[in-house]
């Protein structure tokens, strides 16, 4: 094994244990790992931002005389006016651009991707062949309708609306339970991945090396 890989494994193992130590309580090992993590990940972000965006999309574009890129560059630089008390309002312009973009993209995208698509999926024949599919179709329709009624804000919850909203909560609770159960297994597998690293990549080779050292 090459020395820098060995060093890497030991460092990674140390960080893994330091983070797990937080489960017991906050401690110097966790604090050290946390601060190293923040420093390294932010440094990484800065470099990615520079090479992937500033270098590729700004400097390269300027090199090819695509002068239009000056506008977002100026808007980006305008963000720095935050450092000045008097001129900080200038930063509102790029912020306004981003918010306008977000709202303008979100409105039609969510109509198409959420509203239309899920309405389409819900509209199905209720009376179909067979008792089970028919019952399922009715439950689905009931669940969607009552769930929607739960989200009514300006209608007072009394009489049938109250019953429907209550049923809506019932459906929501089933979903929350099922989603929770569904997520459990995926998350456990990540833990297993970490334990695998500790045991197979760190402890086992180390023990083997110690064995070789003392056993000849």
């Amino acid at each position, binding site marked *: 094994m090459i020395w820098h890989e060995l060093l890497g494994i030991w460092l990674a193992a140390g960080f893994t244990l330091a983070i797990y130590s937080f489960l017991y309580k906050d401690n110097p090992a966790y604090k050290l790992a946390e601060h190293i*993590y923040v420093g390294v990940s932010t440094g990484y972000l800065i470099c990615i931002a520079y090479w992937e965006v500033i270098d590729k999309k700004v400097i390269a574009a300027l090199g090819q005389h695509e002068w239009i890129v000056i506008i977002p560059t100026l808007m980006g630089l305008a963000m720095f006016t935050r450092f000045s008390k008097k001129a900080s309002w200038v*930063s509102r312009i790029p*912020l306004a651009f981003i918010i306008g973009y977000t709202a303008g993209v979100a409105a039609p995208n969510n109509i198409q991707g959420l509203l239309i*698509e899920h309405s389409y999926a819900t509209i*199905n024949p209720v009376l179909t062949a067979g008792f089970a599919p028919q019952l399922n179709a009715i439950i689905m329709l009931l669940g969607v309708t009552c769930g929607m009624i739960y989200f009514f*804000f300006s209608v007072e919850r009394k009489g049938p609306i109250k019953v429907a909203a209550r049923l809506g909560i019932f459906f929501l609770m089933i*979903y*929350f339970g099922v989603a929770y159960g569904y997520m459990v297994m995926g998350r456990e597998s990540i833990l297993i991945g970490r334990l695998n690293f500790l045991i197979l990549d760190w402890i086992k080779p180390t023990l083997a090396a110690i064995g070789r050292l003392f056993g000849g």
Partner: protein
Amino acid sequence: MSGKTHSGKCGFFAVSLTVFLCIAMATVGIGQPGELVLPAEFKAIDTPHDAGKSILLVWSRSPSEETRADKGLEYVIYEATSPEGPFKVEEKAIVGLEDTLCSDAPALFGFSPRHKNFRFVEISQVDEETEEVRQHWYRLGIRDETVTEPVMLDTIVTAKARMNYFMSHRWNTLLVLLLMAGLVLVCIEWAKKHPDLFIRKIPGIDAVDEAIGRATEMGKPIMYLTGYSDIDSIATIASINILAHVAKKVAQYDSRLIVPNKWAVTMTLTQEVVKQAYINAGRPDAYNADDIFFIAGEQFSYVAAVDGMMVREKPATNFFLGSFAAESLLLAETGFSIGALQIAGTDSTYQIPFFVTACDYCLIGEELYAASAYLSREPRLLGNLKGQDITKIILTILILLGSVLMSLHVFYPEQHWLQAIKHFFAAL
């Protein structure tokens, strides 16, 4: 008499021969199908809702598709630069029988049942070398493994690829958007005249006062997180709107508000909003820009740093409002461990269960978007909530009605209009 007999024999022979020939032909016919039958119709049209780059060639299905489907039947498109030819076969223009029915592409042709009888192919009109749009002429051929040369249709077709300025297949999205925009505006006007509009209780939001009061009493700070997403998510903007109201109350209660950010842009906006809230509350001097800061930019380093900060600062109240991913429970459980009162709200459906289990209050989905209006009590925003409700009522009715019509369609399959509502909601 004898002549009669002779003619009778001849007649019998003729009939026998005919029957024999028919049987023989039929027998042969089973092994070798008749000639390939050409489509009756062949036409070229401009591709709807594209930027003038391609055209569609459409033809009626050949009857041979039924009889020779197992013989590798396919259509061949011939292209020429002038109506006189020569027509050459292009690799891209060999059309099989899979997914080429016009009814397979409702985005291009709509939902009419007669489209089952037509096939189509989209042909680019952009010259690969010059990248200019040109006009070409086309002929249709049909072939299978039993013939060496395709059988050609005489018809020569062409169409000009035109620029379309509207994606006509997105008309349903446009209609819903216009309807909602109309409702927003109408309901705002309506709310101005009816300021005492009823809005049901949203427990998580009602608890905001209690949460801030608790922090003040305990002399501990309040932590507010706007989530995992940058400002490119509407949930983040919704969260920043709620923050404005929370910050104003914090300023009034003279508590301390900490807002660690994962994004520089959200940091800028949250600083702006909190500062303004303190000014609005008449306490500009109490605003501390250093309490609204950038803590880490990567998902889990953000979690590690916020969790660390939580156990050290021990906020009395945590707000988790916005879009959240895997970090939701990592933050909420740490918050629970330090005994903070926690109010969460997210549009991330997979994270809601985690917040429901680990937090004291959880705004579910749309409630996050309603919270700002609810807190502000401003008639214009409350009117907007009414507009949202009307949209949902219309939607519920359409879903119920659509399902009833679809049920009827099972019994009357020839009544295609019964599918109209379902087809309206097709995202094409």
